[in-house]
């Protein structure tokens, strides 16, 4: 390696810059987490100190558990996210297969039509979406959210998955056809298992925006039984704005599931982004 590219002074400077920025990125999360375990007095007296035997307190978490139905909110978020991902992947993969495998009239046009939604945010259509959900009686149900997120996720899913499906070998599919397999069997048995890594990438890309969305839960499903974790914590924090213990604990509880998901999936996510799936 060239000397200029591994100068020790440069290396120290690079680590310095990265450490500085990492601290900036993690500091707020750290402050919220440590203070959620402290007494009210300690939160204000020494906000940057770690909780110790004297200042440790779970009072905030007790309030949250008593007042907010966080378990229900969590369950709602989970249902909406998992169901939306399932439909995005299933419908997206089917459409991507049709577009990449078969030549038919209007193939290109259909691909362009489905790709429109990559750049245009679905939020623009909110007024009519709400009207439609009211008319069909889906307002304040989790189905309203699942449908919206599925529609929102499909364009990019079709785009990414059809790129990958073009790489599946034709010989394999033709061998299946010679063996008398139906087109459906070829898709579900032969092609889907081969594009599993691409499906994981699509899933991880969609998971975080769906889980964190505030706009559609606020507008389409604000009822107590259908609140998602994001909306639930927003409302809870708004009500308890002067109870710092409760607010900090609620924030920590909202951070935790996402952080766990991130730790599990961060490799997949980063590999997905860096493999150029969104180029």
């Amino acid at each position, binding site marked *: 390696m060239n000397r200029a590219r591994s100068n020790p002074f440069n290396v120290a400077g690079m680590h310095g810059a990265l450490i500085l920025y990492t601290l900036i990125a993690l500091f707020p999360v750290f*402050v919220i987490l440590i203070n959620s375990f402290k007494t009210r007095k300690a939160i204000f007296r020494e906000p940057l100190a770690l909780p110790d035997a004297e200042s440790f307190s779970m009072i905030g978490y007790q309030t949250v558990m008593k007042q907010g139905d966080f378990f229900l909110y969590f369950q709602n978020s989970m249902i909406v996210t998992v169901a939306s991902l399932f439909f995005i992947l299933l419908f997206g993969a089917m459409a991507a297969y049709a577009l990449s495998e078969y030549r038919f009239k209007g193939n290109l046009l259909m691909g362009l039509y489905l790709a429109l939604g990559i*750049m245009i945010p679905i939020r623009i259509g909110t007024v009519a979406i709400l*009207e439609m959900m009211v008319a069909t009686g889906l307002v304040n149900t989790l189905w309203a959210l699942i*449908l919206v997120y599925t*529609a929102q996720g499909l364009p990019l899913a079709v785009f990414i998955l059809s790129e990958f499906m073009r790489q599946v070998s034709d010989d394999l599919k033709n061998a299946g056809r010679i063996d008398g397999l139906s087109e459906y069997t070829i898709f579900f048995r032969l092609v889907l298992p081969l594009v599993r890594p691409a499906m994981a990438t699509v899933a991880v890309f969609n998971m975080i925006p769906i889980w964190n969305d505030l706009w559609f839960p606020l507008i389409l499903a604000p009822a107590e039984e259908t609140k998602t974790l994001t909306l639930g914590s*927003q409302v809870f924090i708004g009500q308890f704005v002067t109870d710092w213990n409760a607010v900090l604990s609620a924030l920590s509880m909202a951070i935790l599931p996402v952080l766990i998901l991130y730790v599990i999936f961060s490799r997949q996510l980063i590999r997905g982004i*860096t493999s150029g799936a969104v180029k």
Partner: protein
Amino acid sequence: MSTSRIRWHIVVFLAPAVLVYTAVMIFPLFNTLRLALYSEVDQTRIYVGLQNFRTLFFDPIWSEQFWNALGNNFWFFLIHMLVQNPIGIALAAILSHPRLRFAALYRSAIFIPTILSFVIVGFAWKLILSPIWGIAPSMLDFVGLKSLFAPWLGKEEYALTTLALVSVWQFVGIPMMLIYAALLSIPEEILEAGEIDGITGASAFWKIKLPLILPSIGIISILTFVGNFNAFDLIYAAQGALAGPDFSTDILGTFMYRTFFGFQLQLGDPHMGSAIAGAMFAIILVGVCIYLFGIQTRMRRYQL
């Protein structure tokens, strides 16, 4: 296989995606644009043509709010372009350095804010910047700059910039990752060829790498543009639907929400809300077209 016969499996494969996408995304989009041409008088819907847009752009009360939100939105976007994207590129340039230790660790840590919800980010920063809690002033005191502290989120002249910077803090991970991916795809031979010609270190970045990653920078710019002009959550979580103080943090998303859904004593007006959505749609469309036809086609792509 005869080409005139309908091949049903193609229909079956396409139908679910096309139906859901058309019914829940494309149809409401155009229906919203159509609703913008109507108004409600005595609980009946009547066609008023472009009247809603005239109200939005020229009526003194509406237009003041609209241009305020639009101007704020441009400022919001400008800060992202000037702060978020350069920081993202710089971090990516450092991370992509060969033989840097702990690169994966830094990368994962810096990406953490991006995965948090706006609600968490909005409230966490609100608490940290709060003069009551005193974390921000005491940290400034530590470096001897306490006199600089002001309740940033509460002051009209600083609130929008502060929120834009919070949003930058949250999303810097995205440009960082995309540029990082682009930098990794530059072949080693090109850099070595540059080294032989005496181009190393910083000048290698400016003269070789930067021109090669320009297409990625273009993609990041348009993603930032679309994301910013459709932003809502962070402002709503931190400042509420009124986008205080005195509408100084109001952007198109919060303006549309307030108009369409109503707040406090003002009733919601779906038709004016649709008109604002129509304006947002036009702005995003113009931005995307400028990118697709003005920038992307003219950018030189290098065969790697």
